[in-house]
């Protein structure tokens, strides 16, 4: 009897330990498998097209839109920002390197020295400050235009977030993961509820996209964000995070807060291997 109890207890502990040490790699495999089983006909890269991968009619409308995409003008504005020298004569290339196509695939990444997740937007403003320029706003406007240009230049390159074997990096990943799966707000809804368990379903008139592939196309041009008083349509991933949190009636965190940076770390890692196709168009 004693042996039996010991055996059961060891088995229980082993199971708990396995669950506790389920690392990023295992998470990614399970995440991928979930979507492959849920949408067996969809190719991996097509998940980057969001709801347009799930609905044939919406896809047709989107393909029409892509013939003269509304984000084109902002890609050009971003190029101008990239090429315009700062007052000190330097430019963004002095911070990021001359090849604009290599910038976007580096983000987000773990900065060991700073002990935090670094995002593209964070480094854009860091570069501006270092060169005596005024930083951009975090969610829309110039920061999204420059992001759109860098995304456009990186089209076809694959997302490749690395989670280093560093306890702090793993903690940031785990925090991002927890944020993603935690229900929040008055509506008691998690990111995962819409984008893992119910993609393809509708919320009012909107078709829910899969979490797999979402970070590939940010910054995006959203028709909703082009309405009067909302901006020119362009917005960053953190702007969208804030919008989602607001919609479930949770108080949104600030763009580039630790919470959203960690979320971006986890969220983008889950789409590793997918092609960057930013900027995207979304309703």
């Amino acid at each position, binding site marked *: 009897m004693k042996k039996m109890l010991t055996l059961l207890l060891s088995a229980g502990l082993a199971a708990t330990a396995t669950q506790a040490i389920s690392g990023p790699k295992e998470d990614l495999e*399970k995440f991928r498998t*979930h979507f492959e089983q849920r949408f067996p006909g969809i190719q991996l890269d097509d998940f980057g097209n969001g709801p347009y991968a799930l609905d044939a009619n919406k896809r047709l409308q989107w393909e029409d839109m892509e013939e003269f995409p509304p984000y084109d003008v902002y890609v050009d504005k971003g190029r101008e920002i990239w090429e315009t020298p700062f007052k000190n004569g330097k430019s963004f290339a002095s911070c990021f390197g001359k090849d604009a196509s290599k910038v976007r695939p580096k983000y987000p990444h773990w900065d060991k020295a700073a002990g935090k997740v670094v995002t593209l937007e964070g480094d854009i403003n860091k570069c501006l400050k270092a060169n005596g320029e005024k930083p951009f706003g975090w969610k829309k406007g110039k920061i999204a235009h420059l992001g759109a240009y860098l995304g456009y230049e990186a089209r076809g390159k694959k997302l490749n977030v690395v989670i280093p074997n560093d306890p702090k990096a793993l903690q940031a990943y785990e925090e991002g993961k927890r944020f993603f*799966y935690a229900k929040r*707000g*008055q509506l008691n809804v998690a990111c995962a509820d819409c984008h893992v368990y119910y993609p393809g379903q509708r919320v009012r008139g909107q078709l829910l996209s899969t979490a797999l592939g979402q970070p590939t196309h940010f910054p995006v041009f959203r028709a909703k964000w082009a309405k009067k008083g909302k901006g020119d349509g362009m917005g960053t991933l953190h702007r969208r995070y804030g919008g989602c949190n607001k919609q479930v*009636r*949770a*108080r*949104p965190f600030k763009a580039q807060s630790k919470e959203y940076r960690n979320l971006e770390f986890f969220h983008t890692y889950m789409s590793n291997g997918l092609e960057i196709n930013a900027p995207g168009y979304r309703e």
Partner: protein
Amino acid sequence: MKKLIAAFGLALLITGCNATTPEKPASKQAQYEAALKNAQAAVDKAASVGGEWRDIRWKKSKKKYLPSAIEAAKAGDYDKALKLLEIVQFQAEAGYKQAMAQKNAGPRF
């Protein structure tokens, strides 16, 4: 019997007086101040675990229950302020409980 009637009359008189005496504004104010203190503490507690809900005090919320309660009290409408603080208290406590319950959230697959 006479005594009984007198006692009954006296009781009626006391109850009547109580019912017709309006609550002093000062006591409403005290109630409001206590409720505000409790509500603010509950909101801070919810915020400390990232569990604050949108409509309590977020600047872009159309409702902003907590600032609206403070405004109502400033205008002397303590009844409205107390009603709003009740909502704040409930939402803050619920947000905290939700965040605690989701502390170990993870995938269901």
